[in-house]
């Protein structure tokens, strides 16, 4: 059950994926999403750092390297607060499933490594809905680094934790930064009851595991009739030439 901070239960379900860069969490979330949609559920998706109202400021801060540990933390909290009120809570009130790629645990990990007080940042985010399930993709550091460095052109300043002055070498800085974040995640497994997924398992096995964890929570969740017009086409022997265009525009096909 997803729960408001005041303990009030919401009819929808909030599933969260967490883990360091290169843990494969986004891939698994994408597979989960497609499965849920295929099963006919109403699924909303919310991504870390995606609020249009806040993003311009975050982008400016990152590009011009203006962010300190505290402003980095606050601006990401503003992002989640905005998405919470406009996206996440309304969808959960309507009884839908919300999938979040990164959530408060990302902030707790990164910001504490940057030096903000653990209790301070936990209280800042106390507005956040308690997720139904939070999945943590555990991956050995070296494996995640190999995945990242082979798939991405160049690490960015804050992504690599260069603001922390851990090392002047960007790759070395990234490695130390990620290592420290892993330590924070590991502490949070017990603190918040994160469900650990072994991200070294083959993709399909991880996905099976994810589905097994999620499935018991799906009873009574809002379903949406998708492509209701298909029946009409069959019954009336129409081709649906124009309808398929609309479907494609809406991303239904």
């Amino acid at each position, binding site marked *: 059950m997803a729960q408001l901070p005041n303990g009030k239960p919401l009819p929808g379900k909030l599933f969260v994926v967490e883990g360091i860069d290169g843990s494969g969490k986004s891939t698994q979330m994408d597979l989960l999403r497609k499965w849920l949609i295929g099963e006919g559920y109403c699924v909303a998706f919310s991504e870390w750092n995606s609020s249009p109202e806040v993003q311009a400021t975050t982008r400016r801060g990152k590009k011009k390297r203006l962010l300190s540990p505290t402003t980095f933390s606050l601006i990401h909290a503003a992002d989640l607060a905005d998405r919470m009120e406009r996206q996440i809570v309304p969808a959960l009130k309507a009884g839908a499933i919300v999938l979040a790629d990164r959530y408060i645990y990302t902030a707790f990990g990164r910001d504490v490594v940057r030096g903000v*007080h653990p209790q301070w940042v936990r209280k800042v985010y*106390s507005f956040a809905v308690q997720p139904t399930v939070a999945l943590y993709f555990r991956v050995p550091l070296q494996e995640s680094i190999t995945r990242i460095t082979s798939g991405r052109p160049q690490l960015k300043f804050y992504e690599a934790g260069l603001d922390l002055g851990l090392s002047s070498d960007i790759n070395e800085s990234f490695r130390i930064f990620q290592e420290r974040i892993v330590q924070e995640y590991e502490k949070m497994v017990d603190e918040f009851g994160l469900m650990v997924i072994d991200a070294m398992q083959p993709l399909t096995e991880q996905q099976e595991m994810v589905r097994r964890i999620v499935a018991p929570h799906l009873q009574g969740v809002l379903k949406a009739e998708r492509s209701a017009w298909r029946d009409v086409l069959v019954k009336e022997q129409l081709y649906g030439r124009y309808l398929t265009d609309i479907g494609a525009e809406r991303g239904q096909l």
Partner: protein
Amino acid sequence: MTQVRFYGYGLPGMRQQELSGRLIVLEGTDGVGRSTQVALLREWLESSGYAVVSSGLKRSDLAGKGIALAQQGHYLSDMTSCLFYATDLTDRLEREIIPALRAGFVVLTDRYIYSIIARALVRGLDQDWVYNVLGFALVPDKVFYLRSDLNHLVPRVLNARGFNYWESGMDFLRKRDYYESYAEYQGRLLAQFDAMGSEFDFHLIDARRSVHEVFVELRHNISKLIEGMRPRSPRIPQ
């Protein structure tokens, strides 16, 4: 000397115990004449030989533009704007105010956390949460609370720029009428500021008086705060 004290957990990485400048805050509701007084005080201080930096809400390099843009769309939720204002203030504290205080400037700020708190609390945000968020804030040397009342504020606002959407609380009071909304909102803000006075050690200034009278009182009080900070001039040989 300004003792480095914070309202809450403070700023990570701040090792200094003392700062040689002074942090002076002018607070009060909209239209009470804060920015006029800051401008007058700055001129007086500089012509007396003090180095001055002035600052105000929404003026940070990082978040100033972002807030202004978002407010044009009338689309910020209460918590988001509180966090946005907090980001703006932290950026100014870390990159403008504290460096200036370290260097020995007199820093005059037009509003500080108290406006952010009042704004958030009248909109119904949880006090503990708001105080925690703003716990990074340095405790100022002095907070002057410029207090006026609606009868004095309304004509000033009308003469200046008219009723503004946010200053009238149109975002949450849901009244159709700007004047009614303004009166209700500013009334609630005043009550909130009054309630915070003793907690945050406000120095009350009656801002219903003329600009000149208010200035003289502020100048008198600030003179005491900055004693000994003025550079001494050598005797110029005749």
